[in-house]
């Protein structure tokens, strides 16, 4: 079942890279008829103040997400397994940004 009018443009999720080498971050969503228009609209909507260096647009319907009701079985078991964190090693002196 779809409540979307066929005349409506599909929804796109927009990811921006603020500087070369950094990852693309999700900044929001917008409507566009196709990928090309999505990238242009993203340029106008999200990069007006110099926020962006590269744009990715992904059709929202192509994103598959975990469900909130799976929260417990998906994520809670990780909470009590401290040995999964590399905290039991002595750090050499002079190593920064860890």
């Amino acid at each position, binding site marked *: 079942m779809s409540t979307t009018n066929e005349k409506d443009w599909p929804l796109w999720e927009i990811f921006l890279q603020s500087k070369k080498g950094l990852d693309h971050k999700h900044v929001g969503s917008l409507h566009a008829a196709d990928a090309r228009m999505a990238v242009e*609209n993203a340029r*106008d*909507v999200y990069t007006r103040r110099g926020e962006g260096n590269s744009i990715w647009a992904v059709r929202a319907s192509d994103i598959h997400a975990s469900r909130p009701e799976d929260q417990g079985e998906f994520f809670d078991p990780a909470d009590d397994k401290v040995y999964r964190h590399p905290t039991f090693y002595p750090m050499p002196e002079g190593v920064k940004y860890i």
Partner: protein
Amino acid sequence: MNQQEALFRFALRMGDNALVLGHRISEWCGHAPALEEDIAQTNIALDLIGQARNYLTYAGEVEGKGRKEDDLAYLRDSREYINALITEQPKGDFAHTIVRSFLWDAFHRPLLNALANSSDERLKGIAEKAVKEVAYHLRHSSEWLIRFGDGTEESHRRAQTALDELWRFTGELFEADEAEQILAKEGVIPPLESLKAEWNATVDRVLAEATLKRPSEGWMASGGKKGVHTEHLSLMLAEMQTLQRSYPGVEW
């Protein structure tokens, strides 16, 4: 007309074109067919108004009578405006706006490309900055025109109607007045007819992709560049200038 007078007139015209078209496009603010497009059109309007400020400031300096950008924008009547007629036409439906922008952008870009090599440092500086903005304007208007022409029956019909109605304003773009002839001879600006080949190529390429029919050359309207305008400009100026005219020198 000496070269300085010619330069004043040319800078003024570039400012008038950008200001009038920028104002026309700004009329979509809050009314565009989609939120995203509302922002896009408003961005384009602001680009043009920014360009207008640069040109009008420069025109005022060249003239040397102490007129600032605001004096030139808000305290001249339509007879003193020397923009091309195409820029002042009403925004019409969205197809009219896109077709007008496209026909203008296809002219504006090669003009700025040439001005970016001007022997006049100020014009060169303004053009170097503006040419990137205008490259995007042309891309945006071309994309829409292709979608309209190659879209539904109704969008095709509206785009073709707008094209047929606005075509008669394109001849004036390439008609050089005395100021433009003087400056072209001095290498300050390109001869306007030299821009026609690129304009034709852009128009033919996009119209072919849009499956729209290029109108026959036919009769061309002109006069805007001499200050003889269509009825639409004075109405637009009345609205644009009302605050400054009613409260001279007002600031807030």
